[in-house]
């Protein structure tokens, strides 16, 4: 099968949606001529025109509002927040409007909107451009939260997100755009709420989000050389969360490591651990997460804060003592 990068996989899913469904349109900053800062909408303005590809002023509140209002009237907007850090500017429209109007209207309004964004650190973009804020959105009922880690996953999950009747927070990762993987040429769906066991193992369960999935797989290779077999689980969506797959794995291994770049305190890892404990599964647990600091700029500082394969390996070995 051909290999393409994550950006191209996003591009293909968007292209398919724009081609096959007139109701789909895009709003975002620099998505027109620039083709999105990573190239995810390259060529779309020429192909689909300025009403389907609306290049926006710097107006996050209006960008999300444009998704809310148009989706209520039957459109399928896919809008973009360039960095998840900027989603905080539009939290009112995301949390008080998008996530709530279906419920508040007694189920009458449907808001089939997608907010595409990207998160994460490791590129030296510092505190206001490196956050991982998925926990904010997982905490709000009424909005789905998707974190694809591979080119194969991102293409299938984006198609599902666009077709879903609910608001979706679709969180890509800045370090994943250049990663390559096998991706079918045709379009396909990956369902929400189905975790992917990316590597099987019997000694320790590693549940990882987004780019941390790659760190976990790297750690698993290192651990394997020492005879420790790690099971790496990628939830892919944290709302809905496939906790059953996680429970089954931890029952088998008795050891759980959760990995995310988001800060440890009140990160989504806490939710996963809480559910495992509530389920009554005996396990030794460790969260390998971003330190509770804003993201520093200089590389040694950034490396100190972010999780890595080495930190996962160290945590696994401690759990196995």
């Amino acid at each position, binding site marked *: 099968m051909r290999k393409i990068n994550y950006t191209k996989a996003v591009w293909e899913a968007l292209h398919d949606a724009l081609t096959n469904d007139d109701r789909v349109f895009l709003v975002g900053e620099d998505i027109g001529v620039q083709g999105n800062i990573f190239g995810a909408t390259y060529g779309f303005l020429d192909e689909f025109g300025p009403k389907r590809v609306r290049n*926006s*002023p710097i107006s996050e*509140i*209006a960008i999300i509002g444009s*998704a809310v209002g148009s989706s209520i*009237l039957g459109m399928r907007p896919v809008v973009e927040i360039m960095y998840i850090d900027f989603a905080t500017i539009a939290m009112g429209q995301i949390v008080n409007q998008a996530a709530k109007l279906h419920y*508040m209207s*007694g189920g009458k*309004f449907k808001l089939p909107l997608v907010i595409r964004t990207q998160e994460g650190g490791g590129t030296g973009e510092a505190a206001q451009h490196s956050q991982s804020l998925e926990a904010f959105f997982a905490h709000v009922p009424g909005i789905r939260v998707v974190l694809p880690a591979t080119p194969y996953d991102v293409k299938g999950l984006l198609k599902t997100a666009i077709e879903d009747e609910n608001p979706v927070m679709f969180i890509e990762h800045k370090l994943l755009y250049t990663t390559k993987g096998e991706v079918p040429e045709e379009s396909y769906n990956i369902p929400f709420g189905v975790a992917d066991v990316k590597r099987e193992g019997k000694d320790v369960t590693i549940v990882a989000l987004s780019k941390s999935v790659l760190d976990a797989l790297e750690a698993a290779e290192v651990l394997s050389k020492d005879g420790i077999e790690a099971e790496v689980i990628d939830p892919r969506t944290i709302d809905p969360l496939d906790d059953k797959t996680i429970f089954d794995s931890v029952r088998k291994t008795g050891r759980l490591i959760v990995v995310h770049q988001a800060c440890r305190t009140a990160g989504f890892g806490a939710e996963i651990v809480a559910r495992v404990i509530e389920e009554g599964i005996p396990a030794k647990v460790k969260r390998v997460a971003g330190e509770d600091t804003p993201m520093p700029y200089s590389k040694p500082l950034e490396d100190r804060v972010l999780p890595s394969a080495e930190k996962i390996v160290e945590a696994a070995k401690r759990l196995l003592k």
Partner: protein
Amino acid sequence: MSAKDIPKPTNDTLVEMYRRMHRIRLFEHKALEHCTERLNRGPLHLYVGEEGTAVGACLALSKGDFITSTHRGHGHCIAMGGDVKMMMAEIIGRATGYCKGKGGSMHIADLDLGIMGANGIVGGGIPIAVGAGIAMDNKNKKNVILCFFGDGASNTAAFHESLNMASIWKLPVIFLCENNLYGISGCAKDTLNICDVAERSKSYGIPGVIVDGNDVFDVYGAVKNARERAISGEGPTLIESKTYRWLGHWHADPCRYREESEVEEWKKKCPIKRLGEHLVSEGVLTKEQLGTIEKEVIREIEEIEEFALNSPFPNPEEALEDVYV
């Protein structure tokens, strides 16, 4: 613009306007009674005194047009032909309410009637109106979205971003600011550095129109013109309706921020009284006929009260439904 350029409502429309304004006023007073009887929970934001704006504006719309509303939305919803039985039931939290008791007073919605919802966040509906405008633009529909908001909301970031975006893309939005001079206690003369919200239209290169919110002709004409402009692809208009709420911001507001004398001055400009006098002096209706309309609306409100009070509460387990589709 000369007098003959201003679109005028027909006599039939005027009579309907008179009826709907009465309906709003009596509904609001009935809702207020329920507050004091503790039948509704939470605050009610009542529209008494502002009826001329909602009715003048909404009756200038056509089928397929939509509105976004505010926390003070009962007037807008009734002006759009909202089902007052379902509104009252919603306000007292019954299963027969517009939103099955899930939304309450500030979130009444009816897509079939063009009501995209009241909204509890000040300025929350303005960006939503932009989205509605894009939907209409992309579907090539000759329809408009009428976006209500207040003087307080005109100071929000949401207002600025939305008017700018609607202007650059020439979206079919009518931005209608109901300047009733107060947020809660924040007086417009202290919270704005300009006198007229309509002046802000210059920042967006769109027309700014001031109307007397208590004169249904003024409001109707401005909205009709803005509608024409919008559906011919020329973009949005900012209309500022000068009006006043007779009651507090919420039903139990002690109103320490204004004088009774100011309220009395505005009561003299009552939109219902003015339209009634016009209908009689122009020979459209007699005084008796005006009285008949009022009696019919009183009876209507009594019936809806009975309906609402006899409606069941929703099943508690329904609280867990409708989070997702």
